[in-house]
């Protein structure tokens, strides 16, 4: 992996590491003393931005399950990478093959839904199990030749985030954030009201395809820490939490990122000191945050009803308008 194109990324990684060492000196935090933790934190921070960013465009269209389906096909991609490395001595990162396989699966799901006019959970479930089955079969076929345990892919691992994979994640991160920044208007319109977006001249199919491909990228990027089994949670839980406490779309997007970062940082910290698996802890923290947000949302709603009774208010305003 001496690609000169990637040189700036490695420079970025070492600069980040330098920054973390300084932070360790200032704060005295033990977990910042290790370069692998620096990479894990960087990957975690990126996940905290890109997962809710894309998750927002999935959750509000009842597509939460798609992340799970793609994560399992990504596992097949990992198996393909391990297979190529073991049998043909390719030396390719399994995460790279995972991105490719997951993106192909994403497009397949989308094209099927375009033809059948519906995302249906049956086809999603079939894709999910096919991916996972393919992965386990490929891995078992090569069990003799494989020295790498698949646990890190299934459950994620803070300690195994290699520099190459962190660099790959930075590329994915840039593509995802860049695409959403450019196409945010269209993505919002398509997510909120697909028919009206179509009427407004937006090429809905292209944005749907883009969304699922970006989802595949998020899934593989986040897999390094979260693992196949838990990765979809980061697409869904922070977004669901933000929905409870936000009024506007912009507000929900920002708070979902803040909540995801909170879950990631708390989760990594707790898992480091408690020696528990990071993916699981992060998800548990995220779910905890979600529950707090549900309670906060209900409380606020209750108080709003007491003070202004918005429904009655709304009807009164309608009546006024009718009288005009």
């Amino acid at each position: 992996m001496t690609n000169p194109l990637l040189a700036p990324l490695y420079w970025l990684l070492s600069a980040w590491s330098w920054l973390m060492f300084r932070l360790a000196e200032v704060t005295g935090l033990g977990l910042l003393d290790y370069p692998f933790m620096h990479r894990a934190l960087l990957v975690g921070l990126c996940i905290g931005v890109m997962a809710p960013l894309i998750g927002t465009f999935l959750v509000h269209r009842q597509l939460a399950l798609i992340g799970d389906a793609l994560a399992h096909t990504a596992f097949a991609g990992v198996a393909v990478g391990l297979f190529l490395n073991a049998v043909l001595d390719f030396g390719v990162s399994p995460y790279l093959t995972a991105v490719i396989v997951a993106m192909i699966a994403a497009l397949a799901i989308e094209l099927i839904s375009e033809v059948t006019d519906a995302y249906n959970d049956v086809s999603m479930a079939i894709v999910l199990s096919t991916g996972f089955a393919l992965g386990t079969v490929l891995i078992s076929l090569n069990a003799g030749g494989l020295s790498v345990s698949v646990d890190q892919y299934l459950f994620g691992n803070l300690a195994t985030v290699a520099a190459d994979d962190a660099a790959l994640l930075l590329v994915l991160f840039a593509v995802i954030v860049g695409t959403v920044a450019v196409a945010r208007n269209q993505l919002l319109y398509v997510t909120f009201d697909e028919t009206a977006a179509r009427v407004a001249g937006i090429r809905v199919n292209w944005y749907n395809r883009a969304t699922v491909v970006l989802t595949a990228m998020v899934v593989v990027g986040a897999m390094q820490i979260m693992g196949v089994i838990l990765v979809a949670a980061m697409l869904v839980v922070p977004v669901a939490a933000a929905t409870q406490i936000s009024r506007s779309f912009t507000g929900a997007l920002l708070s979902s990122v803040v909540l995801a970062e909170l879950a990631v940082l708390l989760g990594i910290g707790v898992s480091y000191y408690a020696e528990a698996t990071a993916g699981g802890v992060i998800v548990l923290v995220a779910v905890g945050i979600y529950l707090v947000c549900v309670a906060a949302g209900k409380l606020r709603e209750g108080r709003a009803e007491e003070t202004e009774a918005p429904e009655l208010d709304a009807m009164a305003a309608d009546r006024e308008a009718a009288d005009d």
Partner: protein
Amino acid sequence: MSGEGSPTSSPLIDLDGVSFAYAATPVVEDVSLSVDSGEYVAVVGPNGSGKSTLLRLILGLEEPDAGSARLFGERAAGFDAGERVGYVAQGARDASSMPITVREVVKMGRFPHVGFGRLSADDWAAVDDAIATVGMEAFADRRITKLSGGQRQRAFIARALASDAELLVLDEPTVGVDAESVAAFYDLLDALNDRGITVLLIEHDLGAVTDHAERVVCLNREVYFDGPTEAFLDSDALARAFGATAGLVADAGGSPASEGERAGTASGLGTPPGGED
């Protein structure tokens, strides 16, 4: 009609001998319909009569199997000047759970104009203007799911206004909206039509149609009537259209649920049109 002074000479909507079928079931057969700038047209007909499909054909969301559908003189399915058309869906449609404010919804009306760019001060002015026109200033920063059905529909109208739409297409906009709000909603549509905006709507509430629309198209797969509202009231088009549905139900042996639905609508619509005033 009220759109005099419009430079457009070709009709905004022009369907010529359009037929369309889902799988093997014909939904719309040999429908020709032309709507000029400034008109106020209501499409009525029983449930399952192809009204919504007709809208989809007009908007280019479906391609006709036979005949041609043109929008602003262009082939409807390839039409891409989306800012000229405002679409408002059924009021009772499950509201998206998405947290989004009225202003953010109305803002979408500017998206066809700005593309990938940011909204300029002028764009925001158009948004505020549209919100004011529909009388929703006080609710601009409210989450849209917390509003009443009537207010929500006004927000969607505002989105169309913000995009400078010349044609408003509404699919049963007042389903699930309380009676007083319906009246306010139609007053708003009248005012917009007076400003020269062409209105085409599907409506199940015959009273609203006869009170407001200038022209009625009665559809049940085929066009049973197309003409001024007064002439529609004097015709037997509605009875014939519903008779055709009764035949259809018997032929198709439809599911009990859909039969019940049809029967329900038929009785609602079947009251003498004049009697609702």
